[in-house]
């Protein structure tokens, strides 16, 4: 009997793989209950977790300026943006949970340094203009990366990205508008804006990942239609879009080459804020443990779900 069962499994496996391949080839969406190759599942969990973690860690460099925002209007915009990022993190953790993992597990991996977040958030926000540069360049690069993900083969991820991209475009326009106000402001404000663009340009280009010939996951991700374009292709597109925008802002973009050694160091944990970012995340989690425990204990006593 065992041999028959074995044979049947193999046939089923091959049939499932064929159905999956056909669905991907036909640009159909893979949904949580559909069969999918283990490696596809693992690759998506890795990418979605990294994406969710980036939203959460990405709150820090901007939240750094909430208490110092120079006008009440800007303060409201910044608070709303940081709130949106927490919301994006929530969507993405939920989307990742459809693949059989949990937010707790993913956060534990982030805190243990076993999953990554975008290298960009390891750079410090040193002036108010950095908030604008993050909006314009960092969110701009993120959108360039993420718009193709709205057509990604995995349904829950693609749908989360549609929602996220709308809000990100809004943030990018706000960042641009912030920089424009500075650029057209006093000489000191203009200089602040130019300095921020000078510092954020290269790290923004690094957000597209290593050059194509060094990108380990790319070929498989493109075959699965998780990714639609190569790192270098998206990076080129971003550079093309940014040039005229910089002109309109009255600011200049730095010239030169990407320092890939710096990129590797930041990925290894040696960037300017790696330790600080992860330490703050861990501290918030650890110091909040008693609050989460209280919610669980209360729910057990009163038969209710956790407060949201």
């Amino acid at each position, binding site marked *: 009997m065992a041999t028959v069962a074995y044979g049947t499994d193999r046939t089923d496996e091959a049939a499932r793989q064929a159905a999956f391949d056909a669905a991907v080839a036909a640009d159909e969406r893979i949904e949580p209950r559909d069969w999918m190759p283990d490696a596809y599942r693992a690759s998506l969990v890795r990418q979605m977790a990294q994406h969710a973690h980036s939203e959460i860690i990405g*709150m820090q460099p901007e939240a750094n300026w909430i208490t110092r925002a120079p006008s*009440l209007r800007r303060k409201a915009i910044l*608070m709303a943006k940081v709130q949106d990022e927490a919301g994006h993190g929530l969507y993405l953790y939920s989307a990742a949970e459809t693949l059989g993992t949990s937010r707790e597990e993913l956060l534990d991996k982030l805190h243990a340094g076993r999953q990554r977040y975008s290298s960009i958030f390891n750079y410090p926000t040193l002036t108010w203009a950095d908030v604008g540069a993050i909006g314009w360049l960092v969110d701009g690069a993120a959108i360039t990366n993420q718009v193709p993900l709205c057509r990604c083969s995995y349904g829950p991820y693609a749908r989360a990205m549609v929602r996220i991209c709308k809000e990100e475009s809004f943030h990018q326009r706000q960042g641009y508008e912030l920089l424009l106000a500075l650029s057209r402001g006093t000489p000191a404000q203009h200089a602040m804006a130019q300095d921020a663009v000078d510092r954020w340009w290269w790290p923004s280009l690094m957000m597209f990942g290593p050059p194509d010939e060094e990108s380990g996951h790319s070929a498989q991700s493109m075959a699965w239609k998780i990714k639609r374009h190569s790192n270098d292709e998206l990076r080129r597109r971003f550079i093309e879009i940014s040039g005229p925008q910089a002109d309109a802002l009255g600011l200049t973009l730095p010239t030169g080459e990407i320092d890939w050694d710096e990129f590797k160091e930041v990925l290894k944990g040696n960037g300017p804020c790696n330790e600080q970012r992860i330490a703050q995340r861990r501290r*918030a989690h650890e110091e909040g443990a008693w609050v989460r*425990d209280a919610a669980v204990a209360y729910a057990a006593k009163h038969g209710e779900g956790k407060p949201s």
Partner: protein
Amino acid sequence: MTPSSSAGALALGDDALVLSHRLGEWAGHAPVLEEDVALANIALDLLGQARVLLSLVGDEDELAYLREERAFRNLQLVEQENGDFGHSIARQLYFSTYQQLLYGQLAAGDGVFAPLAAKAVKEVDYHRDHAEQWTLRLGDGTAESHERMQRGLDALWRFTGEMFQPVEGVDGVDWQSLHTSWHTSVSSVLKRATLTVPEGPQTGSWSAGAGRQGLHTEPFGRMLAEMQHLHRSHPGATW
């Protein structure tokens, strides 16, 4: 706006502005992501209220960024540092209950603040519900959360009496009944949360209604220094 109404708008606006700032300090530090969202949401509502109120008085940014500590009219309660989550929730419970009752009375009247209060009361209902839900969970959660929540309530109690001092220019409020309703409401939540209503004076012994007269506590100066630094460093700039 009469000068008297302006004084009232400034007091209510400063409450919202300062508490919004304190809640903004939580961004990225909350115990759970949902709370990063909720606290930022409440902070944004309060900032929106502050901007409307301060704009009734003058330029919102001049008022927020160029007044010194002694010219602010907010309650001492809202300027208190965040402390742990229980401390922040105690501050939220005390203040949002007050604001809900005060805005309820103002919305029901025909004074200058009625339209604003009618809009804000919807937000404030949510803020109070959020504070109540967490007070219940922390109070009736674990032994540790119970103790921390009680500590926050006790520490902030002496700043609560100031809320019921009549505010110049905020007319048509029955401050005595406001105090009674507030006490009843807070006591009921604390009882359900298995917590104890603090005892002792509800005001500092050295001055009653101090924040409303521009007498603040030490952490407030440092908060303003941070809030105003950039704006003050670039006189006349627009942002």
